[in-house]
């Protein structure tokens, strides 16, 4: 009973959205919000800014790339500058004007929303607040869509998440026949529901059974229970990495598809006498990621790079924040890795590893 009470205490409102009113509600949002949502392209879905009149295609399993791009674009201009010494303000960085007006991501999956809250730990710390990520994050309302039909590669129930997880969401939509049951979980979420004109009080009693049914469909899992007790250097030096990394081709597929990978590179792009300072997604899989100005590369070998990716996700993050692993179980890396390196297999090897005494 206590559990039920505490869950209910977090819900600000339960609203019933008739599917027939969904399109007009989304239309109403466009006067206040820039909208992002899953869009079908060829054989897969990706999150894009919706064009006028375009609806998010909510009949999707898992987007090819995660929706992290809504707050963390693959390439983003930070500053502009002039190299023309005749120009009064030459060699001075000028902020690029950004649009941080309210935006909403419609139909984000619970795993991807939890990923946003994990990434926030990196971009919003006591020492530093990343202005680009945080300004975009604060401008965004996350409207989640519960997963009734998880993919075969989904393992979110063993990552502290789940197909109906509410972490990181402002609204959770649960499909229920001809309607969505909407749980407005935050003030931001309530505001969006108001703006859409979704006001009919709903009943969330159907959710528990749906949640249990969806969770039961997830049979894959990741073993992480012993990772926190492992000594970092034991895992680092474990003789498992040659075998794990052998097949890796060091592409960036896993890191770019991953909703919790946040690394970026800063580049100056000059054209003639003017330039733009960009920040672009980067990947720990590439040798250039750790190349020093001196030419020395502390991770010149493939094994070191593969180890870094898994140690970061499954050990360093876990130890640093004590909030579980930096993986939400979306399964994109498992589905897309060209050589079938599987984080679940790697985690099991780490979890099972016992250092020789």
């Amino acid at each position, binding site marked *: 009973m206590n559990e039920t009470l505490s869950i209910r205490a977090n819900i600000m409102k339960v609203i019933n959205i008739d599917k027939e009113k969904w399109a007009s509600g989304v239309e109403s949002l466009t006067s206040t919000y820039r909208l992002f949502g899953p869009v079908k*392209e*060829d*054989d*897969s879905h990706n999150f894009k800014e919706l064009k006028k009149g375009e609806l998010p295609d909510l009949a999707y399993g898992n987007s*090819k*790339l995660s929706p992290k791009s809504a707050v963390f674009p*693959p*390439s983003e201009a930070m500053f502009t500058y002039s190299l023309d010494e005749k120009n009064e303000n030459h060699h001075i960085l000028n902020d690029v004007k950004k649009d941080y007006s309210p935006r909403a991501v419609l139909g984000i999956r619970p795993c991807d929303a939890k990923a946003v809250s994990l990434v926030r730990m990196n971009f919003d710390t006591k020492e530093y607040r990343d202005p680009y990520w945080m300004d975009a994050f604060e401008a965004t309302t996350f409207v989640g869509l519960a997963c009734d039909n998880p993919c*075969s*590669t989904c393992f979110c129930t063993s990552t502290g998440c789940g197909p109906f997880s509410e972490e990181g969401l402002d609204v959770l939509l649960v499909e229920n026949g001809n309607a969505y049951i909407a749980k407005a979980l935050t003030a931001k979420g309530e505001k969006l529901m108001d703006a859409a004109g979704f006001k009919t009080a709903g009943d969330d009693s159907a959710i528990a059974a749906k949640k249990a049914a969806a969770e039961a469909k997830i049979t894959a899992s990741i073993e992480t229970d012993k990772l926190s007790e492992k000594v970092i250097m034991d895992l680092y030096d474990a003789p498992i990495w040659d*075998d794990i990394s*052998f*097949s890796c*081709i*060091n*592409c*960036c*597929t896993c890191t*770019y*598809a991953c909703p919790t990978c946040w690394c970026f*590179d800063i*580049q100056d*792009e000059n054209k003639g006498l003017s330039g733009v300072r*960009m920040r*672009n997604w980067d*990947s720990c899989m*590439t*040798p*250039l990621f750790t*190349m020093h100005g001196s030419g020395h590369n502390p991770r010149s070998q493939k094994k070191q790079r593969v180890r870094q990716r898994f140690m970061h996700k499954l050990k360093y993050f876990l130890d640093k924040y004590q909030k579980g692993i930096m993986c939400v179980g979306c399964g994109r890396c*498992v*589905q*897309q*890795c*060209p*050589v*079938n*390196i*599987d984080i*679940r*297999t790697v985690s099991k090897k780490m979890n099972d590893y016992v250092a020789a005494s």
Partner: protein
Amino acid sequence: MDAYITKIKEISERLLKDGTVEAVIGFRQGTVPTMSEPCMIKRSDDVKDLVWDSNCRINLCNYLTNRKEKLAIVAKGCDSRNIVTHIIENKIKRDQLFIIGVPCKGMNDKNTGELQDNCGTCTHRNPVIYDELVGDLVEEQTDVDKYADVKKVEALSSDEKWNFFNDLYSSCTRCHACRNACPLCYCPTCFVDESKPQWVGKADDAVDIRTYHFLRAYHCAGRCTDCGSCEAACPQNIKVRQMTKKLEKDCSELYGWEAGLTLDERPPLDTFKVDDREDFIK
């Protein structure tokens, strides 16, 4: 397939036990139904892990580059042609290798489960170089039009070609899986990774993305075996072979050349002849 697997295990076990090789490069069971994982087996006890199925689409020659030890490698037709190219280009020595040849009837597309596009027009299913075969040679396909799709692009107007290639690469994230899955791409530092000075921009500029794809393809001219690893590796399902196939076709028409068939001749763009028909090179 089962007979192949038994034979692959048998040969591998023998080679590891008698010390002919230090390791065997092959495939092991994948964790998802459409994938098998390249692996290196070092202990004869582990040969049980080796598999062979229609998901062994990644070109294993990619894992040979600059290795110094004695190795056995499981090689289907296209892998064997890349091994030939690797030997010509001094990336591996013939006497380091024990090539376990696999006559191949084609790999399955990881998305559709149907025969992979390049396998449908493959005319070298049998390994061209090997030390031992795992089964009888298969019949080679002869009545295939390898370049039907290339001809379609060739027939387009300039504007149409421009749009075609713009669309083709529009979903590219520059993860470089196509490059990294390719046995031909072994430069110590790829031109796109040069940082002193930097050659190519890193942002999502379409010109930079196309520059990468065009140059990658040109580096493969006369060397590409159309093994399809690049396309199989692409997480965005971009038809990256459109460009390499055009160059394969050109090499075939201009020089009568097919890559990786013989150790005795260097690829056309890697050699010089005094009777070259072009004046500029004399």
